[in-house]
């Protein structure tokens, strides 16, 4: 993977774990992305309105009551339909994955294999964005 694959692209990361946010920020910045991280769904929606990210990496299972990554996906689809939304799921959430797909998620990342698959999923996203698709 090119070291600066994300140059000129904005990515928003939603995860309710600050360590995951911190590691993800480091990972994406090293690859040239302009990174924003947030711990809450509400803030993810506000940041999407404000900054219009090219990619959003959304954790489906959020500790915050009343809002899931799926809710955030729905809002992003309305506010910024061109955003490439990658849902971060768990192995046992097949029904949620199906729902996310119906709502227009662009891709998935299984939590248990995040590190292994991250380069692959991000390369695919960047290729599609540079070609003009979501």
């Amino acid at each position, binding site marked *: 993977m090119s070291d600066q694959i994300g140059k000129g692209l904005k990515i928003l990361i939603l995860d309710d*774990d600050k*360590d995951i946010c911190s*590691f993800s920020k*480091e990972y994406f910045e090293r690859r040239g992305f302009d990174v924003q991280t947030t711990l809450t769904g509400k803030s993810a929606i506000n940041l999407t309105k404000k900054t219009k990210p090219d990619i959003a990496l959304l954790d489906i299972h959020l500790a915050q009551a009343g809002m899931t990554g799926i809710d955030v996906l729905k809002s992003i689809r309305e506010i910024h339909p061109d955003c490439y939304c990658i849902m971060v799921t768990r192995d*046992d959430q097949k029904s949620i994955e199906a729902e996310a797909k119906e709502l227009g998620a662009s891709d998935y990342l299984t939590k248990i294999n*995040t590190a292994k698959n*991250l380069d692959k999923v991000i390369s695919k996203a960047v290729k599609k964005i540079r070609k003009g698709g979501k």
Partner: protein
Amino acid sequence: MASVRNKFHELGNWHNKISLGALVTKDALKDKDVSQLSSEDIKKLFEKVLKTLGQIDEFIIAADKTVDDLKPYVYENLDPDAEIPLKKE
């Protein structure tokens, strides 16, 4: 105690953090030509890597604790050697 589902979720989160921590540590060291770095930069690199390794160590301990929390659920319901459900009296 949290539900089994939550405990497995928690375990997945620790695993994810360990995995990402290892990934960024590898990134930090990858393609680094130490002979080209100033002593200050080498010091910063060491501090950074040591900090992340320390975090990974904490996550592993936390993951072990979660596995310990899950053990009773398994051992009270499943014969761990025969891998069949235990008969309830």
